């Protein structure tokens, strides 16, 4: 049930994104005060709670985006061997992007 499990993760990440992107918008655009000041940015960068928040947001965002892209590409009538190549390629892209997405907040957390 590989496809079903991937789809369940897609649903979970979609629901997660709703809350995490919502929280991001709330803090960055709707809260009182200026979230872009040096103090605010540094405050979030050095907070372990915000570090976890950014990492989870990255996982949800990257998975949801790449799975959506996979669904679109699958509609080009890809035969099964090509689907395997596609899966491994997307996994490689996902891990690379996730590595970079991890590096930035962790580096800021350590340096800050």
């Amino acid at each position, binding site marked *: 049930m590989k*496809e079903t499990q991937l789809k*369940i993760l897609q649903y979970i990440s979609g629901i997660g994104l709703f809350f995490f992107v919502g929280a991001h918008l709330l803090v960055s655009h709707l809260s009182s005060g200026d979230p872009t000041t040096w103090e605010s940015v540094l405050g979030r960068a050095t907070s372990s709670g915000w570090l976890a928040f950014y990492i989870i947001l990255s996982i949800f965002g990257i998975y949801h985006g790449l799975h959506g892209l996979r669904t679109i590409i*699958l*509609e080009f*009538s890809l*035969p099964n061997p090509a689907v395997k190549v596609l899966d491994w390629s997307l996994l490689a892209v996902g891990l690379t992007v996730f590595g970079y997405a991890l590096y930035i907040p962790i580096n800021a957390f350590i340096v800050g």
Partner: protein
Amino acid sequence: MQDLSFKVQRYLPGKDKKPYIQEFTVPFRQGMTVLDGLIYIKENIDNTLSFRSSCRMGICGACGMLINNFPMLACHTPVEELETARVEVRSLPNFAIIRDLVASLDPLFEKHKSIKPYVISPDLKEAEEPIAEFLQSPDELESYVQFAYCVKCGLCMAACPTVATDALFLGPQPLGQAYRYCTDRRDTGAKERFREADSPHGVWLCHLAGACSEACPKGVDPALAIQLLKRAMVFDSLRLRKKRTPASVAQPPAESKPKIDVPEFTVK
């Protein structure tokens, strides 16, 4: 209405490079269907016109065609319902053309076969040599009976936008039938069908456009069946699907006497 203008797709593989439209004038008759018009053309104007039909009463599903850009059964479509004197008839989209209006439904039947469209009984002996009926409650019958009305006409496959973009997509008819058999309490083959529907070109490529349900001439709702199949597969994947006891076999009827005594022959 006076005369009707029938614009009919013609195509003879090997001779024609691509399908083209030929126009015929057909006299209107009260209550005539699109199939009646095509039969008139074949009998009176051009006997080389090829189309498929059989029962002429919406049961066999043979005369599926694209009529005024909507997949319909020609025998089930009164010309008056089209509300125009111009009738354009093409072969079903998403299928190769054999000739003129005859579409090749082979992919439909291949996909249909792949989902094992039959009751897989746990009792092999009973399946081979049945002795009695399987017991089912009215509610159990109700859960799948509308999906059992499918006549395999292929209209849902022709209407489906996902089949149009991905020829490997199983499509609404096979997936609807997969659900029909999975929900039948006489059947224990759900796992095998889930495996087939779980392929990259399986149930999860359905975007719920709903065109299949709109096109179905028998009132089947394949879009609903696909959503229910998705739910069943998610529950099965999370091990939350309720385990059902397969329908039991009814007791063989006891020997019974006729209700009314048969009178003796008076003439010997």
